[in-house]
């Protein structure tokens, strides 16, 4: 940073340095998105006793590149009766929050683009804006299938956001902070001495499960993919999109999946902390490696759910969100509050 500041002056140097850091986050993220699509096809393939893509490149490793090039070459079709501006704004509105949320995600102790005080709140605010992409795209396409998909998605995302928010209330109660770095560091302390048992997943187990499942619902993934529902409303909100405009929705969905995986790891699975005692040398050392392992685990669960469960019926989704998850989290908030005030409290 000092180098750029001496080269370009104080403020311009800071801006260039920040831009470089943004590139350092977004570029690997896009790579991860590409290979997550390959992993998804491979994992689901093996779960269904198929092999999955294995033709392009060694063992099919270049398949995502081929898919990307194919989508780039395709024509973007604007439906005649659509609302042109909003039709093009839709994909932008869905990818922008998916990328902006990464600004406050810490990858290691202090390894974060913007270490702001209210980062948990920022994440909730930014991710809650992702639904606009879906609604605007669905409405602007002027197609009945798109519109149905958009309406379903809006209702679903708003419902599950509440349960998700309450699950996070539990996390911030035990951490006493809205800062993601502090939330991880707090999990390393406590009565169980920073081992795997002191991470939030155990004392906040119901919230962990609610957060994970709501995360699947928030990203419109199977079994909550009624917004796309290819067997009933073709492809839902992005039925009219082609080429790169469609690819942007695709990128946003997978970037959101990785984001939810990162947040689950940070808030419930101890982030970059190692599950082994510090005396184990390299394995016991905390670092980005452990965060990546935990994220991969959560992402595998996402793929596993998709291969395993049939799609929920719409009224069942609403019932699960409003009548099961919200009461569960509400009760657990009270339980945690009482627990923290009792002499049995795990948290200092």
């Amino acid at each position, binding site marked *: 940073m000092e180098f750029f500041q001496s080269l370009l002056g104080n403020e311009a140097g800071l801006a260039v340095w920040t831009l470089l850091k943004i590139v350092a986050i977004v570029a690997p993220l896009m790579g991860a998105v590409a290979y997550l699509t390959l992993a998804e096809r491979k994992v689901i393939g093996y779960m269904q006793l198929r092999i999955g893509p294995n033709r392009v490149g060694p063992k099919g490793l270049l398949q995502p590149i081929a898919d990307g090039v194919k989508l780039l070459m395709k024509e973007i079709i604007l439906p005649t009766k659509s609302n042109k501006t*909003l039709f093009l704004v839709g994909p932008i509105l869905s990818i922008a929050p998916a990328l902006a949320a990464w600004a406050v995600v810490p990858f290691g102790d202090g390894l974060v683009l913007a270490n702001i005080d209210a980062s948990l709140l920022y994440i909730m605010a930014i991710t*809650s804006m992702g639904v606009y992409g879906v609604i605007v795209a669905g*409405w602007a396409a002027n197609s009945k299938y798109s519109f149905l998909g958009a309406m379903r998605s*809006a209702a679903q995302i708003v419902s599950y*956001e509440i349960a998700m928010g309450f699950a996070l209330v539990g996390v911030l109660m035990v951490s006493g902070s809205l800062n993601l770095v502090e939330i991880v560091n707090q999990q390393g302390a406590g009565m169980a001495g920073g081992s795997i048992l002191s991470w939030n997943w155990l004392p906040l187990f119901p919230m962990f499960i609610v957060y994970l499942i709501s995360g699947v619902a928030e990203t419109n993934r199977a079994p909550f993919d009624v917004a796309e529902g290819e067997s009933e409303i073709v492809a839902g909100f992005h039925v009219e999109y082609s080429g790169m405009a469609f690819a942007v929705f695709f990128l946003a969905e997978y970037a959101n999946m990785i984001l939810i995986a990162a947040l689950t790891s940070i808030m419930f699975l101890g982030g970059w902390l190692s599950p082994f005692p510090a005396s184990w040398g390299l394995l016991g050392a905390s670092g980005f490696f452990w965060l990546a392992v935990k994220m991969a685990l959560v992402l595998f669960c996402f793929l596993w759910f998709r291969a395993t469960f049939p799609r929920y019926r719409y009224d069942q989704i609403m019932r699960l969100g409003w009548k099961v998850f919200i009461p569960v989290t509400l009760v657990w908030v009270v339980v945690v509050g009482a627990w923290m005030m009792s002499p049995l409290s795990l948290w200092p």
Partner: protein
Amino acid sequence: MSFTMIVFYVLSAILLFSAFRVITAKNPVHAALWLVLAFFTSAGHWLLLEAEFLAISLVLVYVGAVMVLFLFVVMMLDINVEQLREGFWRHFPLAATVGLIMAAEMALILAAPETRLADYAPAAPLAADASNVKQLGLEIYTTYLMPFELAAVLLLLAIVAAIALTQRERKDGKYVDPARQVEVKAADRVRVVKMDAVREEAPQTEAADAAQSQ
């Protein structure tokens, strides 16, 4: 002009323009989206005032939840724009008078010497590690506890009332209790009847055999 001032004027310009478009846009969906932009930009103003908690709450509550539901409703409506515009000029004088009175009242309050706007010193910049989340929490739960709790009770009342208003049994509702649904056994739905195979002694079998042999 400092960088903060430039940001302030850019944000204000966007805010004023989008607020203007909210009331002039022909399509209600466009108007709602302009309102989203207006909320988002005013969150930027909060950030300039170093009130990041309030800024993020504004985005979270209004942009993330309220406006989504608003758009949801507006998109479902089938509004005939022509019909809406019909009475515009007839109602214009009354509406303009009300608007002007309101503007004049606001101007009066802001310009009156009793308001002492000029006496307010610009807030001292906070220390870099000052947490306004903590500060807000302390203020709400000590100094302003009573108004805060009253507002909470009021909101709770509104929630209960809204739910009570929509909770009425529909006669043609097809709701099924999921707990009863999963208890269903195959025997409740299908009855398997055991019966012997029946051989049909029809006279035409012989005729068909005869036709085949020929």
